[in-house]
């Protein structure tokens, strides 16, 4: 059976490879991890580069044609060449501008590839196959969403398509290849054909590596476009520049997500995608027209550490709020918390007209009428508690998020931290352990300090060793804790800036109990934080309010 020739870049002369009988495929799957790749390279390489290394080292790829896209791909080529694991490996030196001179140099590259690939395949250039390979790309003529930025793995893109309320076009990196729009000229010799082909390749919609990439604006200036999901890959830096530009200028709904190209990383993005889908089509949140019974509505927030339940009455007043540890499973935890809440409110399960679930465990709970992300619910809950709030800062044990809302409580923008613990409750918890104090004690330490210490490492592991060394230097506990609070506050303030946060700010989540941190964050933001005694119930409260919306009189 003929082997597949894999490629990774839209500037790859796929049609030329097909003219020599090649079966070409874009290599784009997301592996479970990078065990083999990390052994032969470095962990801090872009995830997609590691996909290539991993696939070759596992023997899944035998023929690979690369383009000198970026420093990572150049490195991958070096490492793969030295590994000797491939039957055919080639890298095209694609220039960075599209003028006449570079077209000439590109022809040289095309002929070089034709010679090497033809000799490897033992075949001559077949003009008919070359012509047949030109297929016009599909255009969208209906409302759609686009994924832009760094290439997106197949598994993640599938997830995006399933989550979004509109068709989604993949316009990332390799996927917006436009060769095929024009057919090759007739009755010309090979040299002339290659000259034309070089022009077609170079004059595609430019990618970020090209020196003149002003043409990329058309990617987000389309009247049918309803929103942008901007994807970046960890350690791929090109596209964050375009994101910074779009963020400043585009008026469309915009979600930024980052993956490291593993399947695990995409799973963590589901909440963000769903929250984005909820924000672009708020109608999705509206009721299914359930009939009013006894007029009680419940919301369950199934978090990683606690499960919270709120029950509202017909007047949307809180009649009970329960907080229980989640325990072993989300479903059992939710059931238990709901039972407890019903008991507290002296109600039966059938008295509840509608039930909405939210939080990480929301989909595991079968009992609910609807499930909505904690981002949308948090915003709604915060708006209920204080209608003047425009920004919610939620720092929990596992993650931190900042949500910006409008005057109706709808989400305008949001951002979540990555899977890194820096800037979360877990960071403070680990530091408290290092300093041998309880979290309660830590929350009131550092309110008064003498020396303004800066903890420079944001990495939890490095920060821990910095703290150990400060302890060894006999620095005062208050000063060290103040330094730690400053580090978390700086990270949080940076998230606030990214979503364009504005007054009034509400802080929710377990960390809102930490007085030292609250004060440092207030200083950093230059504004007071609203902290409600019901802050921990915010998500469940929002869910219960959405449940109430589902019911008609």
């Amino acid at each position: 059976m003929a082997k597949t020739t894999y490629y990774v870049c839209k500037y790859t002369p796929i049609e030329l490879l097909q003219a020599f009988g090649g079966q070409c495929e874009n290599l784009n799957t997301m592996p479970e991890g990078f065990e083999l790749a990390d052994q032969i390279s470095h962990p801090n390489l872009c995830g997609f580069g590691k996909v290539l290394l991993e696939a070759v080292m596992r023997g899944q790829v035998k023929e690979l044609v690369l383009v000198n896209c970026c420093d990572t791909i150049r490195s991958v080529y070096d490492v793969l060449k030295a590994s000797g694991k491939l039957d055919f490996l080639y890298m095209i030196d694609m220039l960075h501008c599209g003028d006449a001179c570079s077209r000439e140099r590109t022809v040289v590259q095309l002929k070089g590839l034709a010679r090497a690939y033809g000799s490897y395949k033992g075949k001559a250039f077949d003009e008919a196959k070359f012509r047949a390979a030109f297929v016009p790309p599909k255009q969208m003529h209906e409302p759609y969403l686009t994924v832009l930025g760094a290439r997106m793995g197949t598994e993640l893109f599938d997830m995006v398509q399933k989550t979004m309320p509109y068709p989604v076009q993949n316009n990332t990196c390799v996927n917006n290849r436009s060769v095929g729009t024009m057919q090759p000229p007739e009755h010309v010799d090979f040299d002339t054909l290659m000259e034309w082909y070089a022009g077609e390749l170079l004059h595609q919609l430019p990618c970020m590596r090209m020196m003149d990439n002003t043409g990329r604006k058309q990617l987000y200036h389309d009247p049918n476009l309803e929103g942008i999901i901007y994807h970046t890959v960890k350690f791929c830096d090109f596209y964050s520049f375009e994101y910074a530009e779009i963020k400043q200028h585009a008026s469309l709904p915009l979600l930024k997500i980052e993956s490291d190209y593993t399947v695990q990383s995409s799973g963590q993005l589901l909440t963000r995608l769903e929250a984005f889908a909820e924000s672009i089509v708020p109608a999705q949140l509206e009721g299914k027209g359930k009939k009013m019974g006894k007029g009680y509505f419940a919301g369950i927030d199934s978090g990683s550490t606690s499960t919270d339940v709120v029950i509202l009455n017909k007047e949307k007043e809180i009649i009970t709020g329960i907080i229980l540890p989640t325990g072993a499973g989300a479903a059992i935890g939710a059931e238990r918390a709901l039972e407890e809440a019903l008991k507290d409110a002296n109600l039966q399960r059938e008295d509840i007209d509608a039930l909405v679930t939210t939080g990480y465990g929301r989909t595991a709970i079968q009992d609910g009428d609807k499930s909505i992300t904690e981002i949308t619910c948090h915003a709604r809950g915060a708006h209920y508690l204080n209608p003047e709030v425009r920004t919610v800062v939620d720092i929990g044990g596992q993650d931190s998020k900042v949500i910006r809302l409008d005057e109706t409580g709808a989400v305008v923008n949001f951002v979540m931290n990555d899977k890194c613990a820096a800037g979360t409750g877990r960071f403070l918890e680990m530091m408290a352990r290092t300093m041998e104090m309880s979290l309660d004690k830590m929350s009131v330490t550092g309110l008064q300090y003498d020396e303004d210490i800066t903890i420079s490492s944001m990495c939890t592991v490095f920060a821990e060793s910095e703290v150990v060394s400060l302890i060894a230097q006999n620095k005062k506990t208050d000063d060290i804790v103040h330094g730690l609070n400053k580090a978390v506050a700086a990270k949080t303030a940076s998230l606030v800036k990214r979503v364009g946060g504005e007054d009034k700010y509400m802080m929710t989540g377990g960390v809102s109990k930490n007085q030292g941190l609250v004060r440092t964050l207030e200083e950093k933001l230059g504004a007071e934080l609203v902290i409600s005694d019901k802050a921990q119930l915010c998500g469940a409260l929002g869910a219960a309010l959405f449940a109430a919306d589902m019911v008609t009189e």
Partner: protein
Amino acid sequence: MNIVDTFGHYVERYSDIRPERARWLLQKGWEVQKLRQKATTDRRLIPADRYLAALMMNTMIAPLKHPERSAIVSIFTPCEMLQEAGLHPYNVEGFSCYLAASHAERSCIQQAENSGLSETLCSYHKTFLGAAEKGLLPKPQCIVYTNLVCDANLVTFRRLAELFDVPCFAIDVPMQQNEDNVAYVAGQLRKLAEELEQQTGRKINLDSLKQRLARTRQTMRNYEAFQRKRADKYIPTDLVTPLYAGMTGNLLLGTKEEHRYTQMLLHDVEKAPKAKGKRIYWMHTIPYWSEALAKQLRFQEDAQIVGCELAHPYPPELDFDPEQPFEAMAKRMVYHSLNGGIDRRIDAGIRHAKAVRADGVVWFAHWGCKHTLGGAQLAKKRFEEAGLPLLILDGDGCDRSHGGEGQTATRLGAFLEMLGGEEHG
């Protein structure tokens, strides 16, 4: 809080509210430092390296003093034409290091990340971009960059040009080493000369440019000769001198000052005492701010840095004809050791390390530098096959928050012990 922290604190504070004031403060602070330099530069450095410290300081102050005559460049952009056009070139790496040395880098990095730039972007670039966004950098007359070596250049300089709204000239350098590619780059340099003339209103005199290239050639030869001679000598050094040599060796290449520096080196090396201690050749930049590194390599007789890749990034056999200045500069770029596959970079590193009789090599895996990170394992294998033990040291040349001082101390310490046996125990 020490004086540098206080200075950095004020620069950062003003950069948020009154950028022009912060810029003034930065300029004055560095000028004071320059005045103090004569007295404070460590007397243990050889006279040539003390002269180098002053050259570097001048290069960094010039754009703050005369922004209208300055040009931002990427690290390996040939600067002879810019000098000929009366421009002061300065680069991202040098300026970011200076900001970090003034303890003003943190808020710049934060600013860049707040704008949406990636956390994994090289911190030299991030510091510089953040400083530009904050208004801490003055508006240059133009920007000249190349894709050579670092692909972050492609996006950083374009963004800077938009921020400052100034003309931006790019030089596209192909990866492969051949005469056609030299001609392709030379063509772009000719065009650049015309554009610089138009931009500055100053004619680039061809004869004068040829003289400059002749001086460049002599300077490069002098430096090579110095490195060969230092093989048997002990030259006391700190952590910034090899970096300064890397910066001025590109920005000032072709100037009388840089030429004079290499002549001084040749003079000083004759007087230097016999080699002693373990000799480390350094690949990529040096995290000069690291105390852990300073303790083991700064003015230490039993271990010192004897060369840095950035200071002579050309294959030893590279030659060019100054009478053809555009081809000469193009050749320097196309045949640059860091252009093309990692093998070329490793080959050059091995030859340079052997020329200075290094005992070991540090491959500094600077956070965000994909080419250096990607090639780390290959480099380890190749250097060690060539008889040169190699330490892959992870870290960051500019951003302290990516440091792990404990790890650096242990890794480097163990490496030196490994090289030096009991004498380092």
